[in-house]
């Protein structure tokens, strides 16, 4: 069984602390991959608001992580996604994957991010001095997800 931690909420996270919590006492995971997604600057006074679908969000993330755990030998997975108001440079999402194998840690991490980007119900609203707009989904994200579905 993989150790799984999924958090959705407004609180900031600390990569160092999450890494330490993931690996403490684990002398079998030779490989840990991490991904941090951050708010990019999109103009003066830029503020991003992350909306989500409470309940479904956690369910969707759990399903994605379970699928990753079935596909790769993972000792532990952490997924944290923030919601609410964020500023440029703030962290949005963290994915940590621990495995005996380097390739499994990398691939499972990218898999989780690719599915999170296309299946987990979060929406970004960008606001700055020029106005406000909902971020449009990128076709590229669908393409990146699809590579995991190839026969």
């Amino acid at each position, binding site marked *: 069984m993989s150790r799984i931690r999924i958090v959705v909420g407004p609180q900031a996270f600390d990569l160092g602390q999450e890494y330490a919590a993931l690996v403490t006492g684990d002398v079998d995971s030779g490989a840990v991959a991490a991904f941090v*997604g951050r708010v990019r600057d999109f103009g003066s006074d830029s503020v991003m608001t*992350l*909306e*989500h*679908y409470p*309940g*479904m969000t956690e*369910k*969707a993330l759990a399903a994605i992580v379970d699928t990753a755990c079935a596909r790769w030998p993972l000792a532990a997975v952490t997924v944290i*996604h923030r919601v609410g108001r964020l500023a440029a440079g703030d962290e*949005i*999402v963290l994915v940590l994957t621990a495995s005996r194998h380097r390739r499994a840690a990398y691939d499972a991490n990218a898999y989780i*991010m690719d599915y*999170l*980007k*296309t*299946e*987990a*119900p*979060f*929406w*970004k*609203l960008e606001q700055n001095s020029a106005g406000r707009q*909902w*971020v*449009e*989904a990128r076709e590229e994200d669908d393409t990146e997800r699809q590579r995991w579905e190839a026969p």
Partner: protein
Amino acid sequence: MKTLHLVYFARLREAFGSAGETLATDAATAADLVAELAARGGVWLAELGGGRVFRVAINQDMAQLGDALPDGAEVAIFPPVTGG
């Protein structure tokens, strides 16, 4: 007649001016429901009438338009997701 609990998110929530509603309907599938809502005209037709992309979830699982709607289901309609 069945009862559905509809919820709207993000751009659609703002366009509809509503976060959700409870609807008594004969819609058998998600496609039927979407057609019924689009028939309201105005922003409903603009968003759900074919011109724009949207997603449907039934009881918090991503769904296809052909999927059946159980009585009492929570049906969410929202734009393609943009998290991460």
